[in-house]
């Protein structure tokens, strides 16, 4: 492993009760970043929000709210980048249409649909792809 790199893998049941736990872990890991010029508390909060949104997408949409499924999360904190990966084993969801919408099209009075917008706004790159046995949502923040 490279110097000062943290690579953490977590598996939780496909249930929203674990959002808080995973979110807190991601905040703690982000607070270990040493090369960030901006507000580290704000960055840690953003990582928590992004991972929460990604987990909810995996739990509710990709894994169809099946409580017997599980979700894998990998958080890698590198010298100049944080990489978040959320793995699901479900049918997946179509990220492309959401990701290619211009920011201005967000509908302020919709109850739903802000999750992927928030992920895209707070991260530098986002992609969702099929892998063996499921899908992975990858989100990168560089600094």
């Amino acid at each position: 492993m490279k110097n000062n790199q943290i690579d953490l893998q977590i598996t939780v049941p496909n249930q929203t009760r674990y959002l808080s736990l995973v979110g807190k872990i991601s905040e703690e890991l982000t607070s270990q970043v040493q090369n960030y010029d901006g507000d580290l508390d704000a960055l840690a909060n953003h990582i928590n929000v992004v991972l929460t949104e990604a987990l909810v997408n995996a739990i509710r949409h990709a894994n169809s709210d099946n409580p017997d499924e599980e979700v894998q999360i990998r958080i890698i904190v590198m010298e100049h980048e944080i990489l978040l990966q959320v793995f699901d084993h479900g049918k997946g969801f179509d990220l492309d249409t959401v990701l290619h919408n211009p920011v201005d099209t967000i509908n302020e009075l919709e109850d739903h649909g802000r999750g992927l917008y928030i992920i895209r706004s707070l991260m530098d790159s986002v992609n969702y792809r099929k892998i063996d046995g499921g899908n992975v949502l990858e989100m990168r923040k560089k600094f």
Partner: protein
Amino acid sequence: MNLKVEETGKVVLIVVKEERLDAHNSEELKKELARLFDEGKTRVVVDLKDVRFIDSSGLGSLVSGFKNASARQAELKLSSLQSQVKSMFELTRLHRVFDIYTTIDEAIEAF
């Protein structure tokens, strides 16, 4: 979810006694707001002083309440947003939709 609901005069105050308002617990706030507006309440304040984390579902529960209020000529106001919560309102531009006040008293006086 821990919600403290108080009625003072014509105003109903909901204090969200949670650190997180997220996809796990926000449905309860959404239902509570719907129940109050269904009962005919016209002035509701949601205080978020204890909330340091909000996600899109948490925001969605408040938007649902806002629409419920608007449809019934009622009003929903928010108070005591922590900085991280406020930044999520700004990111999603919801700060332009809601009436947001620094304290509960200011929110109540604004009706």
